[in-house]
């Protein structure tokens, strides 16, 4: 039995085997080269990308509110990241209040880091920024983030249609918002955010940086510690 099989494997059709081998090798080489090429091409900062309101290249393409305020808080977040939701649950009311009162320069960097639909949520938040509703959309995306029982952290949850409805629910009425989302206007911008964050060695979300200094995660999740960082810098 064993002998028969071994023989069958070895002997005939040498020519055909060789051809198949080269064909398969060629296909694998093609897959690898095309994959690397596409990855390198796609994940580059694109200077022609459409930029949403409040975005400047100097701020790492982040959505920057109150750029003249003295204390700058950079927030690298992903709307599909559960730890970012924790950060928001603890600090959102406080931070939003400071932003609305013009007391801090908040720079939001919505990353497309966790789930396949992260990129859609980031682009949708940018569309909301154009309508002057960034903070509202930002909050709504976290409040409505699927729990881990509803949806695994790294599978897609949001569709563009749902994001449009979410925008309407926070008071956006403009048709421009809808087309901004459906046309994927800011998808390329989200890649610029990613490329900039990668170059700045941002490796996790949330990453919160106050006046250039990265806060430890323990501070991010603790309202007392987080508030103290800002009050120590004169934010009241």
């Amino acid at each position, binding site marked *: 039995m064993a002998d028969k099989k071994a023989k069958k494997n070895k002997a005939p059709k040498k020519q055909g085997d060789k051809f198949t081998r080269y064909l398969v090798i060629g296909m694998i080489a093609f897959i690898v080269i095309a994959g690397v090429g596409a990855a390198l091409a796609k994940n580059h900062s694109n200077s022609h990308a459409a930029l949403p309101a409040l975005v400047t290249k100097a701020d790492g393409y982040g959505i920057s509110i109150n750029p003249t305020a003295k204390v700058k808080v950079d927030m690298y977040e992903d709307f599909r990241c559960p730890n970012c939701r924790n950060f928001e649950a603890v600090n959102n009311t406080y931070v939003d209040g400071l932003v609305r009162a013009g007391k801090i320069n908040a720079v939001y960097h919505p*990353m497309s880091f966790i789930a396949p639909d992260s990129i859609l949520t980031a682009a949708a938040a940018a569309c909301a920024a154009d309508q002057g509703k960034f903070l509202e959309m930002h909050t709504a995306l976290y409040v409505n983030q699927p729990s881990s029982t509803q949806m695994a952290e790294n599978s897609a949850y949001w569709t563009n249609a749902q994001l449009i409805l979410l925008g309407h629910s926070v008071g956006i009425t403009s048709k421009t918002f809808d087309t901004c989302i459906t046309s994927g206007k800011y998808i390329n911008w989200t890649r610029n955010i990613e490329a900039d964050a990668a170059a700045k060695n941002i490796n*996790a979300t949330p990453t919160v940086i106050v006046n250039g200094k990265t806060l430890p*995660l323990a501070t991010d999740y603790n309202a007392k510690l987080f508030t103290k960082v800002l009050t120590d810098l004169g934010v009241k």
Partner: protein
Amino acid sequence: MKNLFTAEIRGWLTLIGRLLLGGVLFAAGYLKAKNPAQATASVRVYKLLPVSVANIFGYVLPWLEIGLALLLIVGIWVRLSATLSGALMLLFVFAVGQAWARKLAINCGCFGNGGVTADGKVHGGVYLTEILRDIGLTIVAGYLYRFPHGKFGLDKESSESE
């Protein structure tokens, strides 16, 4: 004992080893290729390479893994791809080991989570699991280097020895 370990059994073991190592590499590569932002971050966190080099490595690595995985699964250049896979595993062992020693959080890779939690504590178990898994896969790669000719492979003994 020696009789049991015949060429026949060796052949099946080689097939199992190829599918195991190839399967793990394919899954790892696929998950990373799907999310390049995460893939580059998961190279950066080891703090072994300058950021710009780490980012390029992060784009190349998943496709390298997929390529090796496909070669192993179809059984072409098994000895070569097993050697490269084993080297890759040893590189991972080194990277995780030094991250452990330096207490670096490595929680954005695709397999396994953490190392360091929010409170700054180091959990050795996370690093250890990764190291043991990669050492296990290195052993599989070693077996494939020794016995590259298995069942259902496109490599034939003649072509391997050329």
